[in-house]
């Protein structure tokens, strides 16, 4: 085992962590906002709103992320109207293409998570709130959302981990996040086993931290159930 080499590549890979986390955070944030809108559309009473939203969710969940990245990175440039518009300077950059693809992708999955979480709210709780005179935003803010968040959190934590893993695909469109640096190191030195093992360990550590953070958050939110846990 060449520890000096391992230490060296480890330091180089650490430089990729900020970009990985940045891609994850921006996409999750944008994806969550989008997911709320999509979810509102999916549960809409109007077929014209519901149809496209459902198709959106199904399409993004039913095709590979790498394909979505390619479609955005290579495909959008073909649309002349887009090339002349003000967003082209952004969409020309692989960084924004990756962010766009990751955001759209996670928004479809997150919309499903939100749907499941809201559906898991017991109807009795809503009835009780209504009979107390709550409705609209008050009902959502006091009853539906707090219960839904507690139901959805465990599922959402695995979506966050999936996203951290998914950012590795940004390396294919030339971004130098952890996997991008790893691949470059591997093709420079060809000591692939050490290099990919170290990279794997970094991702494992990141995911471990994230799942711990979610476990703590869950414990905090479910404090009122502490006596049942024991």
């Amino acid at each position, binding site marked *: 085992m060449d520890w000096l080499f391992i230490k060296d590549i480890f330091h180089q890979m650490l430089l990729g962590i900020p970009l990985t986390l940045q891609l994850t955070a921006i996409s999750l944030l944008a994806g969550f906002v989008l997911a709320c809108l999509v979810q509102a559309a999916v549960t809409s009473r109007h077929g014209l709103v519901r149809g496209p939203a459902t198709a959106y969710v199904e399409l993004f969940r*039913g095709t590979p992320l790498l394909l979505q990245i390619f479609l955005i990175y290579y495909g959008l440039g073909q649309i002349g109207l887009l090339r002349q518009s003000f967003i082209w300077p952004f969409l020309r950059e692989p960084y924004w293409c990756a962010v766009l693809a990751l955001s759209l992708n996670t928004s479809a999955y997150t919309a499903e998570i939100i749907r499941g979480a809201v559906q898991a709210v017991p109807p009795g709780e809503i009835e009780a709130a209504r009979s107390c005179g709550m409705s609209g935003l008050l009902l959502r803010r006091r009853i539906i959302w707090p219960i839904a968040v507690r139901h959805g959190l465990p599922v959402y934590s695995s979506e966050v981990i999936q996203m951290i893993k998914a950012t590795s695909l940004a390396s294919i469109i030339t971004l130098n996040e952890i996997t991008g640096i790893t691949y470059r190191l591997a093709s420079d030195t060809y000591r692939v086993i050490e290099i990919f093992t170290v990279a794997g360990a970094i*991702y494992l550590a990141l995911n471990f931290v994230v799942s711990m953070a979610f476990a703590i958050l869950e414990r905090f939110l479910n404090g009122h159930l502490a006596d049942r846990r024991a």
Partner: protein
Amino acid sequence: MQLETLRLLGFGPGGWGFPLLSAAGVTVLAAIFGFALGSVLGVTGAYLKLSRHIMLRLIGQFYTTVLRGIPEILIIYLFYFGGSLWLTKIMNISGYDGFYSLPGFATGVIAVGVVSGAYQTEAFRAAFLRLDRGQIEAGVSCGMSRPLLLRRIIVPQTLHFALPALGNIWQSALKETSLLSVIGLTELLRQTGIAAGSTHQPLLFFSVAAAAFFLIGRLSGRLLRKVEDHMNKPWRR
């Protein structure tokens, strides 16, 4: 424009119909073999994780934690480049010079299978834990031997509980095969990439690939739901 599109996707001269169709076949085959390998690994992993010996449980735990926590693409790279390195070393020692790389399809199937196996381990384990203990006790008290118990009681019920989760894992395995394009396997994504590059029509070809993935996923999902319905019969009232 429309005619040109038809010609590009058609089966005539200059059409990409045949290459795309055979690439779709490669994708489906890689997904099926990968998923099947994953099932074998998943049952083994569940057996390890449910074992009484702490060492076996730890091995199972290590397998699922590592394989579910690392990006699939790193695993594919590791298997392909690492495996090729070993192969080259062995060939060089036995007197054949030069560089040797592993066959893309087999390596890809193994990589997809190993990842899928980690998720299937959890599916099988959870399904087995949902199985009512009384069922096994009842079987034992009827004098069933272990193989008979496994065949008549444990396998049908565990499979029934695991099927919905397995359906989701199948969909992920299908989509994961697209990553095998990075090690040069000519599956659907790589073939459409080649077509897009040589015709300068990325939008068209990647959309076709998206439609193909979507359709394959939909059709196989419907098929799986049929199997699920069939297995559900004893539970229906």
